[in-house]
């Protein structure tokens, strides 16, 4: 799955997702990726977020919407991402998932939940400081 957030120099935000979902899923099953507020969310007055992982679990908590609303309330992107993950962890302690967050000033962050074979989450960033895609990571 890819989840992406784009901001232009004026702070306009868009977000999107694309996936083929879980392997061996029950036919007809849909995960969080196409669900607004779950797979991704964006509001140009606050920022954007996109989630990835076990969509059957993550879609129950609308983590992308939560993260954007936390940024609107003043949380920095990393803290917003961490809180969104923590809310899910309360109910599913070992779920597989991660989220990226960006606010309208161009600050960004990510968070993930530690699971078997998943202790670090990698994501990509391009901004005017780098002008080329940079690989970033966050410890779960």
């Amino acid at each position, binding site marked *: 799955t890819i989840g992406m957030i784009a901001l232009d120099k004026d702070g306009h935000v868009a977000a999107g997702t694309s996936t083929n979902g879980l392997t061996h899923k029950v036919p007809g099953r849909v995960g969080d990726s196409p669900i*607004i507020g779950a797979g*991704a969310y*964006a509001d140009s007055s606050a920022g954007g977020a996109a989630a990835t992982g076990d969509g059957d679990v993550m879609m129950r908590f609308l983590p992308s919407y939560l993260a954007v609303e936390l940024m609107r309330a003043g949380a920095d992107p990393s803290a917003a991402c961490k809180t969104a993950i923590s809310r899910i962890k309360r109910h599913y302690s070992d779920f*597989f998932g991660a989220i990226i967050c*960006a606010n309208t000033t161009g600050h960004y962050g990510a968070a993930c939940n530690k699971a078997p074979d998943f202790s670090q989450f990698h994501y990509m960033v391009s901004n*005017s400081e780098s002008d080329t895609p940079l690989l970033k990571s966050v410890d779960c």
Partner: protein
Amino acid sequence: SLTLPLVINTWPFKNATAAAWSVLQSGGSVLDAVEKGCARCEMEQCDGSVGYGGSPDEFGETTLDAMIINGDTVEVGAVADLRRIKNAIGVARAVMEHTEHTLLVGESASLFAENMGFVAEDLTTNKSVNIFSQWLKGNCQPNYRKNVFPDPSTSCGPYKPKGTFTQNKSANHANVHSHD
């Protein structure tokens, strides 16, 4: 901010980031950037979890889900369980721009896509056939069914509901190779 514009995406899909960044640098909109970035991953079948030929379902079919959102207007276009169309993010954009709806699913979404000019083609590849074959040979493991018979942890279907339900902990089959 001095750091804007910005493109950020999940997982180390560098070419997708570069594609989106290129759109912004050439004066394109953030919607164009997200669409082109995700479409690049669909074409490149990023880590097998995006685009055609990956994550076959119980019948061996690949289906696609995608969504795009405009943060200025909170207009959204999304497709789910899309069949036979490779450019899922493009269809999601078409849902946003050519309907007043938010989410189209299944065969009807595919028909909409065809009517909007998207090409219908088989999403199966040799790789997805192989993944499906290995799953069948391995007694259909991993398996997302529960409270059915025959026992889904040891047997393939078809399945029927079991009379008595047990509240089992989720098995957590999602991982870095199979995710949303």
